[in-house]
């Protein structure tokens, strides 16, 4: 150990292995040049730190900045964009109000019309599963059209919508294998496929992307738990 005192990182990020939501925040922090320290949770055994700082949702990610907590990944991303804004750092959300509204719209669409039914389609059964899969595929089609030849949803550079969509770049492929549910068949959604490759190859993204095999093992280990939770949620509707 060095004999010099290292200054404590002013920013801590409470995370858990495999969380695409925490990944969004890591990329945001790296884009803004903010050094941070990871606190890795075992979500089956939540720490006092997590429960104290996110009593409402009890989930990751949670950003701790000078002791104050910010929760909900896209809220955190906006916070990082604003709190650490400098002329030299890239903008995660664009400056123009209308373009910001557009970016927020697509992030909301991805969250509600894509990621939610996608997760459910992996673990649900029967008619419900078919319905979720249909809804997800329809949304993937909309996103594919939205990319319309752009490198990223944000244009030439990664932005807010790309972070919102990150699950589709790495996690979706792994889930398809583990759950045995194919949403993106060969040849489908070419723009989205190309975007996914760009995303996972990005130099900043790569630093906080979970390893594919580790992710697969993680999901496989939790398969039954996901299935029973989704069964319960579907029954409640």
């Amino acid at each position, binding site marked *: 150990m060095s004999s010099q005192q290292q200054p404590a990182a002013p920013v801590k990020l409470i995370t858990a292995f495999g969380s695409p939501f925490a990944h969004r925040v890591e990329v945001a922090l790296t884009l803004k040049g903010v050094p941070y320290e990871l606190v890795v949770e075992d979500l089956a055994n939540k720490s006092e730190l997590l429960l104290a700082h996110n009593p409402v949702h009890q989930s990751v990610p949670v950003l701790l900045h000078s002791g104050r907590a*910010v929760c909900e990944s896209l809220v955190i991303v906006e916070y990082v964009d604003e709190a650490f804004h400098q002329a030299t750092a890239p903008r995660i959300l664009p400056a123009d109000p209308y373009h910001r509204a557009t970016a927020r719209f697509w992030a909301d669409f991805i969250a509600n019309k894509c990621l939610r039914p996608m997760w459910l389609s992996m673990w649900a059964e029967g008619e419900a599963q078919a319905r979720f899969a249909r809804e997800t595929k329809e949304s993937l089609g909309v996103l594919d059209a939205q990319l319309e030849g752009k490198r990223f949803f944000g244009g030439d550079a990664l932005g807010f919508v790309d972070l919102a969509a990150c699950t589709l770049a790495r996690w979706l492929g792994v889930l398809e294998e583990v759950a045995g549910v194919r949403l993106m068949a060969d040849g489908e959604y070419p723009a989205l496929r190309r975007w996914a490759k760009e995303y996972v190859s990005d130099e900043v993204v790569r630093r906080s992307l979970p390893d594919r095999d580790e992710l697969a093992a993680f999901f496989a280990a939790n398969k039954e738990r996901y299935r029973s939770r989704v069964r319960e949620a579907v029954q409640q509707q």
Partner: protein
Amino acid sequence: MAGAAKSGHQLQLLDFWVSPFGQRCRIALDEKGLPYEYLEQDLANKSELLLRSNPVHKKIPVLLHAGRPVCESLIILHYLDEAFPSSAPLLPAGDAYARAQARFWADYVDKKVYECGTRLWKLKGEPQAQAVAEMLDILRTLDGALGDGREFFGGAAFGLADVALAPFTSWFHAYERFGGFSVEEECPRLAAWAKRCAQRPSVAKNVTPPEKVYDFICGLKKRFGIE
């Protein structure tokens, strides 16, 4: 409101009378003193304008600013705050942490209140009891977020989180009747906050009276064949 569309700001709102999501936008526009043209939509027979302005969701509210559509109520609130920064800010300028807190609570309201409320009045038996328990938990969480001594969610100023929740105060009455509880008893701080909001002209003018919301829900139940 014939001249409104020609006013300097060219703001139009595609909306539906009882929608709490639309009412959020009406409250924000009034708080900011922004004149706009209100365009009531027939949701059973959607207009070309609505379908063209919100092709993805085909839902209200939609704000049109010089003809350009902004969709999703919380996104509309952010847009109004950013496009019209000089009038009555919904989010405090220059305080990223306070802004994050406001967004967190607006997001919480968005994720929880309407969906749980719908289950509460739509379902029966065990699933309804479950919805009631969840609603009490949601309301108590909001009550706790207000804490003691805070006038509004962000402190002294009426802001984003307040606008997000204010229209739902009219729906509390229906939740109370279908759920068999009293907000005043369970969440006194939230009830006091609701009274404070109701005193604001923007809220009083734009939020549907509770009895009318209750009647509207009863009408929906009849239509869906739920008794």
